[in-house]
């Protein structure tokens, strides 16, 4: 990281540096402590998938409890031991399951797993760099993430079970070790794991940002970057600015837990005993948490948006519609996401005045989102659509984002949120938009760039099977939840048997659970497809999807520094698909305009007047010739 000399030659110097690193390759330096961004990307992906599967199994476990609240499953006792005495998950452990499920899915799968994988894989490849700005910190970033994952999972081994205060760990519940079993060592481990995780994502983030800023190849100006890069770039910035605030909140929480301070605590009597806390405010934590928390949810969705845009453009053989609008809407979402966090706190005792303000800012976010949605639709319009599995998942992402986003409009309305807050309506909302849309974006990325990562193709048919089962499954799981929410069924409830009014939802719950199990089984198809294709998939060609972006100009066999010779220069934007007058229906970014005179448009030379003149000359001569004939 500490090589460089004179500023101006930063890039150049970096390259030969990039090579120095990888002379003699041992197994350790190639597969374990690798500093090659492509390998690190794979590490992130595989860890991410593992965590995803674990979190999914957790969700199935607590779904079973919700579906059969008063039945006993001896197997659970066999699997979970003390957490499920005589065949039933205990109330506290149910909350642990939900909490860890949420935490893993949001942070470990969709933050590290998603950004980590695709930022590492795509940024250097698509902007034309030899490697990340600092391969070393990149490696550290992965290993911190790995450590965090291990610690998070290890909390299942402590006596009183993992953290169980919900993934939002509101104090006092999370601050008072005696308030519930999960707030003991489990919560401590959660906090430690989270600090490591933030360190990891910070190291990753600054790396991505400086790579995109500094290491673009010749000609790759900001308006020639693929939307994936834009999305990942802005995501990284979001992370850099949002996570530190969580750190502050967590630090104060740790002190409250272990050093007798009272930042978040006041006037507390825990089962009859006065606690000596005065003057703190639980609301303070909620502000600090959601100042991260809301940007976090966009950290989760924006890479998925970028990936889907790219995949949809490639597979409908059509330029993405309104490239500039897409970029500006991404920027808009990035900025807005920092001023809406209060919409999670409408009824938590926040000043109602602020509630009104946050409601306005929140609903504004729908506008850039609308632009994106409609642009996606316009991209499909009169396209020539190829249904690769990746394409299907990208489309699924759009469908889910619309459904989930629209429910967000209800929640964003403070007045309506009074009755919807913390009901299953919220659960439905964020599963559609995050648990489904973002996951589908990630899966689209996996199917699309698998050839780039592993040099082999995944099996299409299994991909189709996986998609339809998951797509239908997810809708079946999450659509009915809205109506439970509208009936005022609260979330984080261990059983709906205690309330007469909720018992009639039991059949629906059973149905949801089986739909979830179905969707979960569908993941077997994915996992089998994924693993087997790594070893026995059919070999990939260099540019299997006939795509324009730079990564497909690299050889199938990975090599450090990505390109054997010079890094190619970029001449055009990444979306010249089905350009009239071109013989192929795609023109890679590296093809100079002079080779495609017949297909050039004045629009291509907006910032190159000389070029425009030449083009006009050329066209006029063409016309002249025609007249001669």
């Amino acid at each position: 990281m500490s090589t460089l000399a004179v500023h101006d030659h930063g890039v150049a110097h970096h390259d030969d540096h990039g090579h120095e690193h990888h002379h003699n390759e041992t197994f350790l330096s190639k597969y374990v402590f690798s500093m090659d961004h492509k390998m690190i990307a794979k590490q992130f992906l595989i860890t991410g998938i593992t965590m995803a599967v674990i979190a999914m199994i957790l969700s199935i476990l607590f779904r079973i409890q919700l579906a059969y609240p008063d039945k006993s499953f001896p197997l659970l006792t066999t699997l979970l031991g003390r957490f499920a005495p005589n065949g039933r998950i205990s109330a506290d452990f149910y909350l642990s399951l939900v909490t860890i499920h949420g935490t893993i899915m949001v942070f470990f799968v969709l933050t590290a797993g998603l950004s980590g994988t695709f930022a590492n894989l795509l940024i250097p490849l698509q902007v034309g760099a030899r490697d990340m700005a600092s391969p070393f910190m990149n490696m550290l970033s992965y290993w911190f993430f790995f450590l965090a994952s291990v610690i998070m999972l290890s909390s299942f081994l402590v006596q009183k079970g993992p953290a169980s205060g919900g993934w939002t760990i509101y104090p006092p519940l999370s601050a008072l070790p005696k308030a519930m079993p999960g707030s003991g060592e489990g919560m401590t481990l959660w906090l430690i794991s989270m600090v490591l995780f933030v360190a990891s994502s910070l190291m990753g983030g600054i790396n991505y940002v400086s790579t995109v800023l500094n290491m673009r190849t010749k000609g790759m100006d900001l308006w020639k970057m693929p939307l994936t890069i834009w999305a990942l770039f802005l995501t990284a910035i979001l992370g850099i600015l949002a996570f530190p605030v969580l750190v502050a909140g967590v630090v104060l929480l740790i002190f409250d837990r272990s050093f007798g301070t009272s930042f978040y605590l006041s006037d507390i009597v825990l089962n009859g005993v006065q606690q000596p806390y005065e003057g703190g405010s639980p609301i303070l934590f909620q502000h600090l948490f959601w100042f991260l928390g809301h940007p976090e949810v966009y950290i989760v969705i924006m890479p998925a948006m970028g990936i889907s845009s790219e995949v949809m453009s490639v597979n409908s053989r059509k330029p993405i519609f309104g490239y500039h609008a897409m970029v500006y809407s991404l920027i808009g979402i990035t900025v807005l996401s920092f001023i809406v966090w209060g919409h999670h706190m409408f009824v938590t005792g926040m000043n109602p005045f602020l509630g009104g303000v946050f409601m306005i800012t929140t609903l504004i976010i729908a506008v850039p989102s609308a632009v994106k949605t409609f642009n996606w639709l316009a991209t499909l319009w009169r396209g020539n659509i190829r249904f690769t599995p990746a394409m299907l998942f990208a489309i699924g992402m759009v469908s889910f984002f619309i459904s989930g986003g629209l429910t967000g409009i209800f929640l964003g309305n403070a007045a309506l949120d009074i009755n919807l807050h913390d009901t299953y309506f919220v659960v439905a909302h964020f599963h559609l938009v995050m648990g489904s849309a973002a996951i589908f974006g990630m899966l689209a990325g996996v199917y699309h760039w698998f050839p780039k990562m592993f040099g082999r193709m995944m099996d299409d048919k299994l991909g189709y099977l996986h998609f339809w089962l998951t797509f239908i499954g997810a809708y079946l799981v999450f659509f009915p939840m809205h109506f439970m929410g509208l009936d005022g069924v609260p979330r984080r409830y261990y059983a709906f048997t205690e309330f007469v009014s909720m018992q009639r939802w039991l059949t629906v719950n059973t149905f949801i659970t089986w739909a979830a199990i179905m969707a979960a089984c569908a993941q077997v198809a994915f996992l089998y497809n994924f693993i087997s294709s790594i070893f026995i998939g059919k070999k990939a060609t260099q540019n299997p999807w006939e795509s324009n972006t730079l990564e497909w100009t690299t050889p199938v066999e990975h090599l450090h520094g990505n390109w054997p010779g010079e890094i190619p220069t970029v001449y055009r934007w990444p979306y010249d698909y089905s350009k009239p007058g071109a013989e192929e229906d795609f023109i890679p970014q590296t093809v100079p305009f002079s080779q495609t005179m017949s297909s050039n448009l004045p629009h291509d030379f907006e910032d190159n007047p000389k070029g425009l003149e030449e083009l006009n000359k050329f066209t006029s001569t063409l016309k002249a010739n025609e007249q001669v004939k």
Partner: protein
Amino acid sequence: MGFRKFINSKTLLSFITAFMLLGTNLLMAQTEAPAGTAAGQPEAPQVDWTGVGYYLLLFFLVCLGVAVVGKILKIYDLTLRIQGKKGLKWNTVMAVICLVFLLAGLYGAYWSFTVQGSMTLPEAASVHGVKIDEMFTVTTVLTMIVFFVTQILLFGFLFGYRHSEKRRAHFLPHNNTIEKVWTIAPAIVLTILVVFGFFTWQTIMDNTDAKGQPASINIDITGHQFAWELRYPGKDGRLGPKDFRMISGANKLGVNFKKKSSFDDLQVDTMYLPVNKSVRLNIFALDVIHSVYMPHFRVQLNAVPGLPTYFKFTPTITTEKMRSKLDDPKFEYLVYCNKICGGGHYNMQKVVRVVTEAEYQAWLSRQKPYLTDQLRKELHFAAAGQSQTGSQNRLALNN
């Protein structure tokens, strides 16, 4: 072609077992149901492994089925190719499935709206609740239009513009006018929603008693793990102050009895509310955050330790009326706890009865004062002793 390996692959076997171990439970549930109901005996009931095996078998069969179908398709595909035909066009197949999904999905959504939609909350039983419900209808209409239009377009395009060798996609990078349109259109829709919503919110959250109308009834509701405590004002209509340092066995809420106003406060177990009288809930929590959630009145506000909050509303439908409306003689309004607060979070309810003014007064007169005889005795010595605990070493108590 993956399917053969799909069946006889070891990696897969392990996955299947892993997943099926989860899928198995239903059957055992039936076999073990008695054990479950008689859940009290310490030793865990035995796992019925035949049940597990049964489900494993089932999954195998499914995989087999999938594999066979795959094979058949493959062979069919080959025969077509041998006959020099194009072979099976998966792309078209997918396009068709998309269309099918659209139609099925639309029907499914409709079904869900009608059937499950009818299971949702009855009409709002409070003044502001009605406003919220209007708000809700407007939002639903607008968003559902968007929902159906966009989804139909999405899947319609998928089918309509599926790949074909003859066509080329229409090169259309951008079109500023239409982009402006669909930036501004949602902006307008949202402005409507924002303005409408903003004023609704303001009116609901404005907790000051308007001049002229009588002051609203003050009721203290205090959450703790895992129950709600209620305190009503006595004749003076005022609630005495509280201090968590004064909490003791008999004085659960730490009411401060140095003040006169606390002497006639009442302790009640069911929340009775007079219909059409404005009520002001003063919301407290003793240990962790809870949330007073009364969905039928569209009322919710968190109970935060150290930060008293309050919510003002006016019930409009008596319990009786609501029972007849829903013709469910056992119907009760309820307070739920709607903020995760520990193991008992899922069962922290309190019955709310909305009654006529007369009934209310009658009921009120029957309630016992908070200041029980036992508490009287206790107070003489306890009052002093209690306040000390406040300033002990914090670490000791913390963990």
